[in-house]
């Protein structure tokens, strides 16, 4: 392009736009971009930012008859009630327990599966296998909970039917609080392990073949190849995902728990979101519910921000 043509092109493209123009001029130049921006922006302002005024209700004693403005201001009373209640420690414990079980059992499984799938050399077998294990990820939690019922329920569950026919007593999986964490963990394994392999398979595929060559020359068996080449190579991926996963610790699968929760297992099932829903929406204790939700939101915010910062400090791209 001649310099003149280049200059002409620059003036009418984005690169030339911001050179020495006033703010208003630039805004008018971008008028159609603003049009494109508008729907999304409106959505965020209305449905994500506006609800935040509701957080103030955590500091008031919400009375539906008095409305938002006339409800009495009580300061941090709801938070103090929350932190002093036995339920709070219970919710904290349950959240931590489900998380830790998830980290021990659910987190490594996709990695192991990915390594196993990677070793399969029959493409057809590999693809069929992948199709099958990805499938549970696309089901709703309602379906998963329903299947759980039909497997574990005392009345209609297949396991108990088998036990009965063999002459044993039924095991009350769904109504005994001691089984709850295991059920939740098992559901997570079933639903997400397969799908979780995708990102690890991609990481494994990116390993430099020369490192395998070197290992083979040194006489490494396939297992040692995995241990000394593959795993160290995907270590950064594992660490990033682990840290980001830790950042999401406050979220323990609200829908999932809500669907299989019942009054008999509350001691191990209750978590912050379920408390907020049951007390806040079902029982009308709006302010208490908002307080819990706000606590969870703030803690979650701190954790994710920290996690993101750690990941970035390790030299990788965070989620933002």
């Amino acid at each position: 392009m001649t310099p003149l043509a280049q200059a002409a092109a620059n003036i009418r493209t984005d690169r030339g736009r911001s050179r020495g123009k006033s703010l208003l001029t630039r805004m008018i130049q971008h008028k159609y971009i603003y049009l494109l921006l508008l729907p999304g922006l409106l959505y965020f302002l209305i449905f994500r930012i506006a609800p935040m005024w509701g957080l103030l209700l955590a500091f008031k004693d919400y009375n539906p008859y008095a409305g938002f403005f006339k409800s009495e201001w009580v300061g941090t009373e709801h938070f103090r009630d929350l932190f002093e209640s036995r339920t709070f420690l219970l919710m904290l414990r349950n959240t931590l327990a489900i998380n830790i079980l998830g980290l021990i059992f659910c987190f490594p499984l996709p990695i192991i599966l990915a390594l196993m799938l990677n070793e399969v050399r029959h493409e057809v077998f590999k693809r069929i296998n992948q199709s099958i294990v990805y499938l549970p990820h696309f089901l709703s939690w309602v379906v998963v909970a329903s299947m759980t019922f039909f497997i574990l329920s005392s009345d209609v569950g297949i396991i108990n039917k088998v036990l009965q026919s063999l002459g044993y007593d039924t095991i009350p999986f769904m109504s005994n609080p001691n089984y709850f964490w295991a059920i939740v963990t098992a559901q997570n394994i079933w639903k997400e392990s397969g799908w979780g392999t995708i990102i690890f398979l991609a990481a494994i595929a990116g390993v430099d073949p020369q490192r395998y060559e070197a290992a083979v020359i040194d006489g490494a068996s396939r297992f040692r190849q995995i241990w000394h080449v593959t795993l160290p190579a995907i270590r950064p991926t594992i660490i990033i995902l682990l840290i980001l996963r830790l950042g999401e610790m406050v979220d323990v699968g609200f829908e999932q728990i809500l669907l299989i929760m019942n009054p008999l297992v509350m001691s191990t099932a209750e978590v912050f979101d379920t408390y907020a829903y049951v007390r806040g929406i079902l029982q009308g204790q709006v302010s208490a519910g908002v307080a819990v939700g706000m606590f969870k939101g703030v803690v979650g915010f701190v954790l994710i921000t920290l996690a993101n910062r750690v990941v970035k400090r390790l030299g990788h791209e965070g989620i933002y």
Partner: protein
Amino acid sequence: MSFVYRKKMTIGDWINYTLLVLFSGLCLFPFLYVASVSFTDPDAYKPFGFYLIPEKWSLAAYKYVLSTNSFLNALRNTVFITAVGTVLNIIVSFTISYALTKKTLPGRNAVMGLVIFTLVFNAGIIPNYLLVKNLGLINSHWALILSTLTNAWSILVIKSFLETLPPELEEAAKIDGSNDLGVFFRIVVPLSMPSIAAFTLFFAVAHWNTYFNALVYLTDSKKWTLQLLVKSLVIDSDSNGVGAAGASDEAVVPQEMIRMATIVLSMLPILVVYPFLQKYFVKGVMLGSVKG
């Protein structure tokens, strides 16, 4: 894949394959069990027995469920929400993502900050509920559609995809006299088809599977979606939901079979679509996972 290529299967290979088959079997088992009970002939059904393959096959349970008003209603509602919701999702997500790729846009950083803020903090269940209530959307399907118009994660992924499109194409179009809208609709959108395809699937599946929002916002059972129906029927053991809804077939179909058939029907679109579109789903994940 490990570098060395061997023609023979070692013992390690056999163990690997076996374990993988076992895991796949575990994944499939619940499907098979639910499906097999649902396809049983009512005469052959043993309420206290169990089986993985029915003695006699029949579509009786399905015929029954498909004749009930509550199911057909729920299906209609779910299809409406999914179709309208997904289209709007795509439109809103892609327009804002494209706008945010324009680094020279005044205020862009502020909006980006806003979007990312929603990624890490949300007001919570009750404030969102109160907002929907104040907008008068309770018991309307639009509560579900509008409250999930777009999300930060999708925007970030779409935006990074759009940033891979060569800028020369846009510039060429501008030189030819096109304005920003023209560039967007005539150049960017056609080039974004893979991303649009992947996200259409993501959004559609999300709408189809929505449970909690539907639970909280839809108070009238005539407005229920499939997930609410399944939940009420199976988990609440509510036989009135389906039984009392004026089914045309008077034959007695056991409750358990009705429930199983309803579950299968609620998954059916996803199961049917899945084999053909699996690679789009996987690619969609990859689009977002470049950072990993």
